[in-house]
């Protein structure tokens, strides 16, 4: 038999890069889809009456009050039992996108509500239609105000994407777990993983703070 424990080597760089790539891909997918869905739901929520809001918010609440790890296990097992087994990447993207949507919809609801009603009256009196007001007035102004919160949610999605490892998606953390099994060197590998997340997240969070400060002026 071959040797059981072997140290990290350059042979592993391909595997690590694939893990990094997979983390980036699933985060981007979830953020993009989650933002689009969140924008739509946020808009519906800001435009609807109390009953519709209550129904929507209690549905979204489920996504926000069950741990992501359990949502992932349940969903991927359930669709399989239902007869439509999904690849870990697909199942993970769906749940992570919905999870993102739940938080993004709050962000965008406050975006739409942040635009003062006098602006809307003004734009309507200028002859803009309802949808023109939405697209040219409310959306641009609203999005600018909530950009820092949007970035906050996006950053937490990048970090939460590590959980998709539980359903077998070979993202960075699962890759490192496999390497730890083989090398018995947890510290070096974990520190590398931590550094990667930090290098992605920290500059973005600094940028978010910078924007926030600029807007406060």
């Amino acid at each position, binding site marked *: 038999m071959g040797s059981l424990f072997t140290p990290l080597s350059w042979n592993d760089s391909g595997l690590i890069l694939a893990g990094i790539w997979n983390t980036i891909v699933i985060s981007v997918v979830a953020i993009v889809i989650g933002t689009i869905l969140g924008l739509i739901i946020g808009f519906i929520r800001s435009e609807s009456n109390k009953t519709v809001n209550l129904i929507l918010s209690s549905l979204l609440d489920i996504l926000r*009050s*069950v741990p992501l790890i359990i949502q992932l296990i349940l969903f991927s097992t359930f669709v399989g039992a239902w007869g439509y087994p999904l690849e870990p990447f697909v199942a993970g993207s769906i749940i992570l996108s919905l999870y993102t949507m739940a938080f993004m919809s709050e962000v965008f609801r406050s975006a739409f509500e942040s635009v003062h009603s006098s602006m809307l009256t003004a734009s309507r009196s200028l002859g803009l239609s309802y949808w023109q007001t939405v697209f040219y007035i409310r959306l641009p102004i609203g999005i600018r105000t909530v950009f820092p919160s949007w970035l906050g949610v996006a950053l937490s999605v990048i970090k939460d994407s590590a959980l998709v*490892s539980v359903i077998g998606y070979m993202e960075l953390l699962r890759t490192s777990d496999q390497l730890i099994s083989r090398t018995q060197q947890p510290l070096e590998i974990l520190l590398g993983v931590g550094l990667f997340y930090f290098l992605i997240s920290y500059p973005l969070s600094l940028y978010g703070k910078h924007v926030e400060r600029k807007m406060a002026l």
Partner: protein
Amino acid sequence: MDYQFHWNTVFQKMPEMLEGAFVTLHVSILSMLIGIVIAVFLAIVKMNQIKPFSYISSVWIEISRNTPALFQIYMAYFGLGAFGIHLSPYVAVLSALIFVNAGYLAETFRGGFQSIPKTQYSASKSLGMTNFQSYWYIILPQMFRRIYHPMTNQFVWSILMSSLGILVGMSELSGETQRLQSLSFRTLEFFMVAAVMYYIITKFVLISASLISRRLFKGEI
């Protein structure tokens, strides 16, 4: 769908599941309480630029906010283990949650404090209040109102993230669920019940928080 649900298996294991839920509550409450104490310290040294603590505070805050919780838990468990520091799964998860809670709450506290206009402080001084009085009666109550909601969210986050205990073999709700489902291989049933239990716990926390806030702030938010 060719899956047949066997709910009896889960109901027989209900006492163990509830025990797990209790551990979940326990660890998240504790992580919140200790996290708040540390966060106050981190926020104070950072705002007053007390060196070298303010550097430690900044590093703490940035690392806790910019790395995944899963990484922090692994680090507390196997990372520290490499240095011969051996935390039990419970303590490892607890310390990781404290680490994150303190980091996030420190920023919340700092933001809350800075949102109170300085003029309030001078006004209360000009009314003849002492330093302590102006903080205790004027600044802190207003600040508390602003940080109450983010604190509730942080608590809910702690409950949800304690589920990562599953990955270091801790027997909180998720870990216990994982163990029980391995005995009978009834994955769907056990995790569905766990999901419902998490939902009830977080709803309970949110509803009590909003009831308490109504009493505390009497509608004036």
